């Protein structure tokens, strides 16, 4: 059976970033030698064309901070020439008028700006960087240049109670989309899990605020709200299923089935400098490892709900982290023998200090 065709390429252009968000999805070893060398302009552009031939239509340019790449306009032009729809994901602090206009002329399709909180002081405290005003200026510039604007905010116990302010801010800025991304516990969120874990009451109030906003505002602002895994009892199809719809390319050219896959021991990731993307998607060991359903163990194998091809076993990185086995059923699932570990994580919310993301020293975790 031929493999499904990928739809999305997540291009992590650089792990460098002026912000220090404690839930960053980048690996905790971003300061290591492995990521010092970033792909050159022509390597990215060649890879964009290869991805289009494989079926990719959506390109997410992300990081770290994408604006730190001086060749960003060339990369956008390369994406346009390859026939990809490009989204720039940025913290907005370096999004100047001059560079934004160049990106527009280069063919960039969409801009997504992250906000850490609708409250300026809280935003700056979570980001570990004075950035709120620059983000707001950037968002207005995005609109002025007639890009579609997405505002993204990662939610956790420190900002969930401000969800109404956040919804109003997105509306006022003219955002077409608002991604309310409840923290997922991989990357830097792992050492910060206790500090970030929200309460059930916070999530219920958040969900209710989203419902009221949707009713009031209608389709003008598309609000994405997903309940976090730890408060579910059936897993989500992580990444739309392993090796099914998306691939991630790290700054050094390693190609991964998901942003956290480098935490899984024993997986070797092929690099675009050594192999054609088509081979990596269709033939490489890392993409084959958890693709489809043949790798599944019990209780997935005989799932009482027959959800194998719906949730694809859930998240492999979460299974590894909570059970020690990346091939286990995602313990979010109520049929997992390890589901109690998810229940106890919910109780673990603690008012502890953040471990801020940094490349300067090895993380002490």
């Amino acid at each position, binding site marked *: 059976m031929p493999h499904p065709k990928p739809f999305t390429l997540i291009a992590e252009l650089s792990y460098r970033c002026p912000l220090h968000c404690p839930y960053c999805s980048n690996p905790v070893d971003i300061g290591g030698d492995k990521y010092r060398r970033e792909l050159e302009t022509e390597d990215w552009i060649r890879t964009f064309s290869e991805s289009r031939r494989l079926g990719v*239509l*959506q390109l997410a340019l992300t990081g770290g901070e994408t604006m730190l790449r001086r060749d960003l306009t060339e990369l956008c032009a390369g994406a346009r020439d390859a026939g990809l*729809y490009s*989204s720039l994901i940025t913290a907005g602090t370096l999004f100047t008028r001059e560079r934004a206009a160049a990106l527009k002329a280069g063919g960039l*399709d*969409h801009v997504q700006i992250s906000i850490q909180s609708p409250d300026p002081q809280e935003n700056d405290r979570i980001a570990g960087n004075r950035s709120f005003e620059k983000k707001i200026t950037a968002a207005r510039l995005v609109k002025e240049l007639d890009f579609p604007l997405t505002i993204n905010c990662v939610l956790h116990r420190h900002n969930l109670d401000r969800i109404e302010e956040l919804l109003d801010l997105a509306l006022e800025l003219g955002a*077409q989309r608002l991604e309310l991304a409840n923290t997922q516990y991989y990357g830097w969120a792992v050492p910060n899990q206790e500090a970030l874990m929200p309460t059930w009451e916070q999530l219920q109030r958040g969900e209710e605020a989203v419902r009221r906003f949707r009713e009031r505002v209608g*389709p003008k602002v598309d609000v994405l709200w997903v309940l976090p895994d730890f408060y579910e009892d059936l897993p989500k199809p992580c990444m739309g299923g392993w090796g099914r719809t998306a691939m991630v390319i790290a700054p050094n050219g390693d190609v991964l089935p998901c942003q956290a896959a480098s935490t899984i021991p024993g997986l070797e990731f092929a690099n675009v400098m050594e192999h054609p993307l088509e081979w990596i998607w269709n033939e490489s060991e890392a993409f084959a490892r958890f693709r489809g359903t043949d790798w599944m163990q019990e209780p997935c194998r005989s799932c009482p709900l027959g959800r194998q091809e719906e949730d694809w076993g859930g998240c492999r990185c979460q299974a590894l982290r909570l059970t020690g086995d990346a091939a286990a059923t995602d313990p979010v699932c109520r049929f997992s023998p390890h589901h109690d570990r998810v229940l106890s994580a919910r109780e673990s919310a603690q008012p502890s200090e953040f471990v801020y993301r940094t490349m300067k020293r090895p993380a002490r975790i």
Partner: protein
Amino acid sequence: MTRPRLVTGARLRYDEVREEHLLLVPEGAVRLNPTAAEVLELCDGERSLDDIVGVIAGRYDNADVGGDVRELLDAMTNRGLVVDAAP
């Protein structure tokens, strides 16, 4: 709906790999049948709804397409993918 246009950032394209028409939007896509793609291509913010119905009917032996076109555009409007260009 007076003069429909695609929402800012939405792009129609034909995907040669999957051999289907798509409406690409920020971080997503909507699969379209060929007729829906034809209708959306006419939503340029200049033509009125009646103009669009007229053009499509002209291409299909003056068939009565008004209901289908309206139904498509209503569905797309409810999803925020088509907006009214009239002030």
